[in-house]
């Protein structure tokens, strides 16, 4: 469990040979957390998908849990931003969480007691135990998101890759998510989250500000300056307490 979670050197990510984001350097230790912050189209989801082995590396080097990317899938949990058919599938919430254990046992092995314990713990952490028998399609967007997060937790992974994990969550949902994340990190899991929520990013050890390239890279209090945020989002933002206040508009893109 002591190997590095993510090592990226001069990494370019994108589709086919077309790089969406270049020059990524990353070094993530067990228990550590990195936030990928940027607006839509900044390359943060593409980077996350590449880390998950869903897209081939365009250029540069990438190792996940000490092995070439894609070879540690059993120890990686990925939360995608969109779910294809969550509204059609006849599945109960608990069935969705149980799916997280699918590749943790051999093909024909039945669910064990240990699997059940982990599934129940994960649902309790996200406060969705009372929804266990409800059909997924009858749940609200925020409740579904919590169920998907419980599925991620149920994998007991060494590396969590989360795309917009707090999308649609209300305040209690966010609190449950933060508790769950602390639990995962305390047992040694590393976490990478893609977000445009600056408040969420400031809870991570390290922040990568992205806009097709790496604008800044470092601890949140060093990196998240008004100048850097202006460059990342194209609008001026200043952190006042936990809130972001728009201070000026960026006009560079108009030229």
């Amino acid at each position, binding site marked *: 469990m002591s190997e590095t979670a993510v090592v990226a050197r001069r990494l370019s990510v994108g589709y086919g040979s077309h790089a969406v984001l270049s020059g990524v350097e990353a070094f993530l230790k067990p228990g550590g957390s990195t936030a990928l912050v940027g607006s839509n189209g900044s390359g943060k989801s593409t980077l996350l998908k590449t880390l*998950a*082995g869903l897209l081939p590396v365009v250029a540069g080097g990438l190792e996940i849990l000490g092995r070439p990317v894609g070879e540690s899938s059993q120890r990686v949990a990925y939360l995608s931003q969109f779910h294809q058919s969550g509204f*059609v599938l006849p*599945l109960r919430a608990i069935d969705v969480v149980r799916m997280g254990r699918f590749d943790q046992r051999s*093909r024909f092995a039945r669910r064990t007691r240990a699997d059940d314990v982990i599934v129940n713990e994960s649902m309790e952490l996200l406060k969705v135990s009372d929804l266990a028998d409800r059909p997924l399609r009858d749940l609200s967007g925020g409740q579904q998101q919590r169920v998907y997060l419980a599925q991620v937790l149920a994998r007991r992974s060494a590396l969590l890759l989360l795309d917009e994990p707090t999308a649609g969550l209300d305040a209690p949902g966010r609190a449950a998510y933060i508790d769950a994340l602390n639990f995962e990190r305390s047992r040694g899991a590393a976490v990478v989250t893609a977000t445009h929520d600056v408040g969420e990013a400031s809870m991570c050890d390290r922040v990568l500000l992205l806009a097709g390239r790496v604008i800044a890279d470092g601890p949140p209090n060093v990196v998240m300056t008004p100048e850097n945020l202006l460059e990342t989002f194209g609008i001026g933002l200043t952190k006042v307490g936990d809130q972001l206040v728009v201070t000026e508009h960026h006009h560079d893109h108009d030229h």
Partner: protein
Amino acid sequence: MGNFVDPFLHNGFMQRALLAGILVSLTCAIVGTYVVLRGMAFIGDALAHGVLPGVAGAMILGMPAMLGAAVGAAVMVGGVGFITARSKLSNDTAIGLLFIGLLALGVVLVSSSDKLTGDLESILFGQFLGVTHSDLLAQAIALVVVLVVTVFAARPFLLLCFDGDLTRAMGYKAQWYHRLMLLLIAGTVVVSFQTVGSLLVFGMLLAPAGVGALLAKRIGTMMLWASVVGIASTYFGLLASYHFSWAAGASVVLTAVAIFFVVLTGVSLQKFVQGVRT
């Protein structure tokens, strides 16, 4: 009660039709569940029509119809993969082109041969009442194969219905399992077309599984509902066919589709009443 049971007690062809219908229903319930959940109705439809030139060609050459159907289905599946890989065209354009091309080829083949006059109808609508013992054997084998594959691939199939990216992120070869699913659909069409016909087998794939999707909370229960609806449709459809001299395959599929709309109306009404109360 006599009217409901007697036709099956005294006629060998009705017994074989019922048995064939049950086998087709069970196979279609399992495969149809994935067709409905993954939104693969169009490729299913295309496969069902794509077998036509294969069957016609086999008949002209004096070869087994099922072999021709298999070739037609293989051309369809391979062709869709080829077109989408070589062009930027979407899947449904590729499927649509092949579907209509193969259907046209089938009609041309049938019309060009004196031997096949009148056979077009039996290919499209099946010969439910002319089921032979070897047809039954083929259907039983198909059901066993479908069951084995579904048990073998249960987890990746469920994941594919849920989220393709998640399937791959968990290390399953999503593309491989997608092709396996296509093969299952193709196999079901190839084996079932002699009973319900290539046009109507598609109804047995969609309607019972559609009812399952409306009623079930779990995939297993969805397959169970689909099986019940399929078997009930076979029974009542054959009965109607016997008493009123309706075309057997069409009666069965019509019953299945009717059940779907009745259940859909019931579920919608129930939701409406719940909405008024709350």
